[in-house]
């Protein structure tokens, strides 16, 4: 940090990302509350533990190799590219940059911001599979989606040099596809193999609603997810950068905030659009679900997710309308898929994240048609075909396929689903009895101590 301005910018940027990371922790808290609220009492602790252990498992693997993938894979093999070992070197776990280093004050907070996205991707999958998946199986999926597949898609389509940005004009500023479509697609692949919970479908195939055990936990959970999502939006921006530092085509000396592609936007713009898309989603979901509380809350989230691909550039009214359109499609698609394919998506994650992300990418291709995807020369402009192909890559290629294949392998090995007896008695049965026994024992001991004194 040579001069005062340089020092101020560096420390501001460092603090900015740190704050977003703390906010984004609320996403995980929200997911945990939502899952526990949605599960039945006999499965609470397992449901909670399944999601909590995503935190350490994805964190350590993201430190060991996930972060390296982001920097080494933007070109990969497509269009003659290769793994960029040079760019990746500074992000290997044994690099000096990945440690206490006064010459690099940004890598730690930037790594952490991406890591929190990784937790989110894994946690989205976790919600779909509650009450019947083995924790061991889910944790393998968590590492794969959190530290491998989502970060490959980020390298390809959420990096200023990613091949999808260069060749397809792929634009996904707040991760409709790179987090939500991929995680929803992955969850779909897993639940197709996993099968529904006992009782989800009647003998004639009619789906049954499995109501949440605690509606308040769901409500607070999703409000925390909204809050964390706001932090996520800020985390997707570079807060202040000069044209010189970007090194692209921008001329002059005016500093700006940028999206992840280093193309200009502002924190003010995304605040407008976050709130308007949240509102459009809530309003549309209320109408389409006929006032169902949980679909309305989830619709707010689905609205933001639908608009997220272009929320760095949309007008707020466009963000509101796009969110509303997305929610109507997502809601209807969820029930159509449930009836047609007998799939049990316990918290609606495939719909709220996967379908909303996919639809959002497609819509943004039309609304932002011709806009530059990057400040660098030679990149394709944003276009409907590129966005559609991007959506397919996110949802099916990097999401659905790996989820389906790995779940199939786990199923063949007999390590995917819990035994039917355990599903019926509840995953917490053993712990619950140990708790009751311990309680009885300590009450007896206290009574004996009291009797001895008198």
């Amino acid at each position, binding site marked *: 940090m040579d001069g005062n301005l340089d020092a101020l910018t560096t420390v501001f940027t460092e603090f900015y990302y740190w704050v977003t990371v703390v906010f984004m922790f609320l996403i995980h808290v929200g997911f945990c509350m939502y899952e526990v609220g949605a599960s039945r009492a006999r499965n609470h602790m397992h449901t909670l533990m399944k999601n909590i252990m995503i935190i350490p498992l994805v964190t350590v693997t993201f430190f060991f190799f996930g972060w390296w993938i982001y920097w080494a894979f933007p070109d990969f093999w497509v269009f003659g590219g290769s793994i960029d070992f040079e760019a990746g070197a500074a992000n290997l776990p044994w690099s000096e940059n990945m440690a206490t280093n006064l010459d690099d004050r940004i890598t730690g907070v930037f790594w952490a911001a991406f890591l929190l996205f990784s937790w989110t991707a894994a946690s989205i999958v976790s919600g779909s599979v509650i009450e019947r998946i083995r924790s061991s199986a889910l944790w393998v999926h968590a590492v794969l989606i959190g530290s491998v597949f989502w970060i490959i898609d980020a390298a390809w389509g959420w990096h200023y040099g990613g091949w999808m940005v260069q060749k397809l004009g792929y634009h996904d500023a707040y991760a409709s596809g790179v987090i939500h479509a991929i995680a929803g697609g992955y969850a779909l692949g897993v639940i197709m193999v996993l099968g529904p919970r006992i009782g989800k479908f009647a003998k004639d195939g009619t789906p049954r609603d499995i109501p949440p055990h605690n509606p308040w936990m769901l409500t607070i959970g999703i409000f925390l997810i909204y809050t964390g999502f706001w932090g996520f939006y800020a985390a997707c921006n570079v807060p202040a950068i000069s044209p010189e530092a970007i090194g692209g085509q*921008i001329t002059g000396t005016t500093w700006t905030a940028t999206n992840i592609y280093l193309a200009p936007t502002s924190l003010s713009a995304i605040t407008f659009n976050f709130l308007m898309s949240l509102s459009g989603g809530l*309003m549309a979901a209320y109408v389409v679900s006929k006032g169902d509380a949980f679909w309305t809350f989830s619709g707010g989230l689905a609205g933001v997710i639908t608009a997220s691909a272009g929320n760095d*550039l949309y*007008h707020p009214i466009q963000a509101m309308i796009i969110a509303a359109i997305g929610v109507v499609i997502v809601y209807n698609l969820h029930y159509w898929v449930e009836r047609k394919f007998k799939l049990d998506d316990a918290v609606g994650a495939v719909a709220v994240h996967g379908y909303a992300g996919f639809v959002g990418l497609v819509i943004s291709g039309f609304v*932002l048609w011709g806009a530059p995807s990057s400040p660098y020369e030679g990149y394709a402009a944003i276009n409907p075909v590129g966005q559609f192909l991007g959506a397919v890559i996110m949802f099916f290629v990097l999401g659905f396929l790996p989820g389906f294949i790995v779940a199939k392998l786990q199923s063949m090995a007999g390590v995917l689903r819990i035994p039917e007896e355990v599903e019926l008695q509840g995953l917490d049965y053993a712990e619950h009895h140990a708790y009751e026994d311990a309680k009885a024992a300590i009450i007896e001991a206290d009574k004996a101590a009291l009797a001895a004194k008198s």
Partner: protein
Amino acid sequence: MSTIGYESWAVDLADVSAIYPFQGWEMPMTIIGVIFWLAWHRIQFVREGQHLEEARKMGEKEKIDKMLERY
């Protein structure tokens, strides 16, 4: 052609203001937005009326008593 009015970022940002798509269509967009908002009220208003009308005929005395006891 670009919906945001810029086909590249080879510009001085000091000269750039609005960058949202379909500039010049703010008034029609506002009208669409207001229609969306008012339509929402209309739909909600009608549906709630229907729901309350159906709900007033649904209650069984025993269950209502239980609800009152439950507080």
